[in-house]
């Protein structure tokens, strides 16, 4: 159970104490609008530990939970988009600090319920920290690389800037559940978007723990909303919710088609990668300024030049 790995060992007397002490297990809750909540439906689904025994019950969020998360993102999103890029950079950097300082806890959260060896889980955490640092650095630079002034024929100062698209839905890959989540979310939020994340269905627990770290970073509540549950129940709402303006998903062929059909109805920006082809989230190619570019708009202004 979550919490069982935290045994104190302060000499013989405390060892004796811990022998009789029953650990306090954690109730996994999802992080939405800056709060830790259960599904409005009260439903959960059990996840197992690496030895096959019961590990915890995770919220099985509903379409209503998803809509609520979108609402939370909408409320928080506007002011996040207006923060200075320097500020967003520092907040994402702070999140990396939180993850680094609690890396043992996160490694255990990855390893215990998933069966991933602890050393591999540690590698995943450090890679996730480094990825956050990478994108924190882009926050106040990507506009300089992707935008520019344009030498038009005429008396105009013409320039192209970037803006976030708004609310982006993220459906996380099942492989490398933490690193995939960070790699999919970080490039979307550094530009000022808010996200609603559906954690890996198979390995949701690292996302639950990440929520607790997000709460202690300086990221405003509602910018990263993480829900857990079954893809097949939620994918249609991700696809058709008109306030979700972009989707980044790593899913199978059938889900990909469903997302594309829904995206058409409100002309959503869709980035769907196939889960059938394994993505190497550790690779350098898994991080790029062009990941940020997927969920921004370019705005071009023609400003007159004249006396």
């Amino acid at each position, binding site marked *: 159970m979550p919490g069982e790995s935290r045994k104190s060992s302060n000499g013989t007397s405390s060892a004796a104490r811990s022998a009789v002490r029953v650990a306090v297990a954690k109730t996994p809750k999802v992080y939405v609008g800056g709060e830790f909540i259960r599904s409005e439906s009260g439903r959960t689904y059990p996840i197992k530990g690496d030895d096959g025994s019961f590990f915890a019950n995770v919220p099985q969020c509903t379409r209503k939970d998803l809509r609520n998360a979108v609402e939370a993102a909408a409320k928080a999103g506007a002011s996040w988009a207006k923060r200075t890029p320097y500020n967003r950079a520092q907040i994402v950097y702070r999140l990396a600090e939180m993850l680094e300082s609690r890396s043992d806890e996160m490694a255990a959260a990855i390893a215990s319920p998933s069966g991933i060896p602890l050393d591999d889980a540690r590698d995943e955490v450090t890679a996730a920290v480094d990825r956050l640092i990478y994108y924190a650095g882009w926050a106040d630079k990507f506009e300089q690389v992707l935008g520019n002034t344009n030498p038009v024929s005429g008396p105009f100062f013409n320039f192209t800037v970037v803006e976030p698209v708004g609310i982006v839905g993220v459906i996380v890959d099942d492989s490398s559940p933490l690193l995939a989540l960070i790699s999919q979310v970080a490039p979307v939020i550094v530009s000022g978007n808010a996200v609603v994340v559906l954690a890996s269905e198979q390995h949701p627990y690292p996302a639950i723990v990440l929520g607790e770290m997000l709460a202690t970073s300086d990221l405003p509540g509602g910018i990263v909303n993480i829900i857990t549950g079954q893809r097949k129940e939620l994918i249609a709402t991700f696809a058709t919710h008109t306030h979700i*303006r972009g989707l980044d998903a790593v899913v199978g062929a059938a889900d*990909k088609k469903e997302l594309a*059909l829904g995206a058409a109805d409100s002309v959503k920006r869709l980035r769907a990668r196939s889960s059938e082809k394994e993505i190497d989230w550790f690779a350098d190619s898994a991080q790029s300024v062009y990941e940020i570019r997927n969920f921004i708009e*370019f705005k071009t*202004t023609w400003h*007159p030049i004249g006396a």
Partner: protein
Amino acid sequence: MSVTKTAPKARKKTQAAAAAARVPKLIFGDLWEFDPAPETADAKIKKQYELFIGGKFVAPEGGKYFDSINPATEKVISRIAVASAGDVDRAYKAAQSAFDNTWGKMPGRERGKYVYRIARLIQDRAREFAVAETMDGGKPIKESRDFDVPMAAAHFFYHAGWADKMDYAIPGRPTEPLGVVGQVIPWNFPLLMLAWKIAPAISTGNCVVLKPAETTSVTALKFAELLQEADLPPGVVNFVTGAGETGAAVMSHPIAAKVAFTGSTDVGKLIMRSLAGTDKKMTMELGGKAANIVFDDAPLDQAVEGVVNGIFFNQGHVCCAGSRLLVQESVAEEFVAKLKHRISVLRVGDPLDKNTDIGAINSRAQLEKIEELVQSGVEQGAKMFQPSCRLPSAGFFYRPTIFTGVTQSHRIACEEIFGPVLSVLTFRTLDEAVEKANNTAYGLSAGVWTDKGSRILKMSTELKAGVVWANTFNKFDPSSPFGGYKESGFGREGGRQGLLDYVRLV
């Protein structure tokens, strides 16, 4: 200081009315009856056009043709081949073969030279193309001559130079062309939209299968002749003509690595749905319902010209047309009065006449759509103004139309009319202007008129639109990326930003 018992609000209203009354009328009387000044250059339009596949003009496999008419006269100007799905397949195979054997392997430096050639050849035959464009589509010759054709040449010239400089356009990652690209373009700027689509596609190393709009295929096929003159390797650019069925075949062909569409939001959504489940890249340049926002400190006469240009340019057949005028309440009455006088002297008529401001509506179907929406405006209670200008007896023409008293829920304030119809709304504060301007599913363009530079930048920051024009409207440039937010589509055309949509990162 004089003492008056009039309430300040009422006084302000009286002043505004007085200002409106003072607006000088442009009355030219008989002087306005210009002699006809038709453009007489030979458009060199053939009686019949075949499909252009693999560098050759080839007959369609079904042997079917349709008539292309001049919308100003309703007379047939040419017969155009109907491409079947089989013809589209032939075109894709020709394009794939060109990609595999010539174009895809050619160094960017050499590809660029071909694209430069195309730009030069358009300039050489600019007048001929302008006349053909006007005869085929109905737009005034002064627009096709001074805007469409030179801008088409400029797009090829601009993109030609990128062909060997992609490392600078997309820093940090090498790129490669996608392969064959399917493109479908609209009838409002036939040659220019062709240039917007083909220039970036072939400069970046792709080959193209393009379908022009059914009512405006002539300049694309004349352009095909020009490609032969440029000695462009066969199959790099292929044209298949026809209606929606041909377009669907172009969009859904399995060889297409990417599709690019410009047209209505409804059709864009249909295409997106039809491609669900495929890995085709897409760019969509769809509809708009742009707000043109006039603040009370704006130079009003200049703003009137800009608003007129914003909605009546190309008969309003412009996706980024400034079809919603938002004017600050304190100057609304005066501004609308000026606007009415101004549109009363717009010359509607023969598109080939060099003095014509508003030409022919592109097709009967479009004319009926405009009439239907205008009717809805009247029925929903908006107040219509149309000048009493004479319209030609033949052809499809529509008077410039202004609606006042429009509310945000009126259909004429929500739906894209794609015609010479302006809806006027008012606002009091900047925040209200922003709120109303953004209150639309579209987000292609917007206009701001004010004397204050910081307000221009504030508005530009707040408006959810891909292009914001300040103290101007409907300005375009190959170096300036164009494209929409929200349901106006995704991807950009032109500028450095438009290039990534035609390559993949490796």
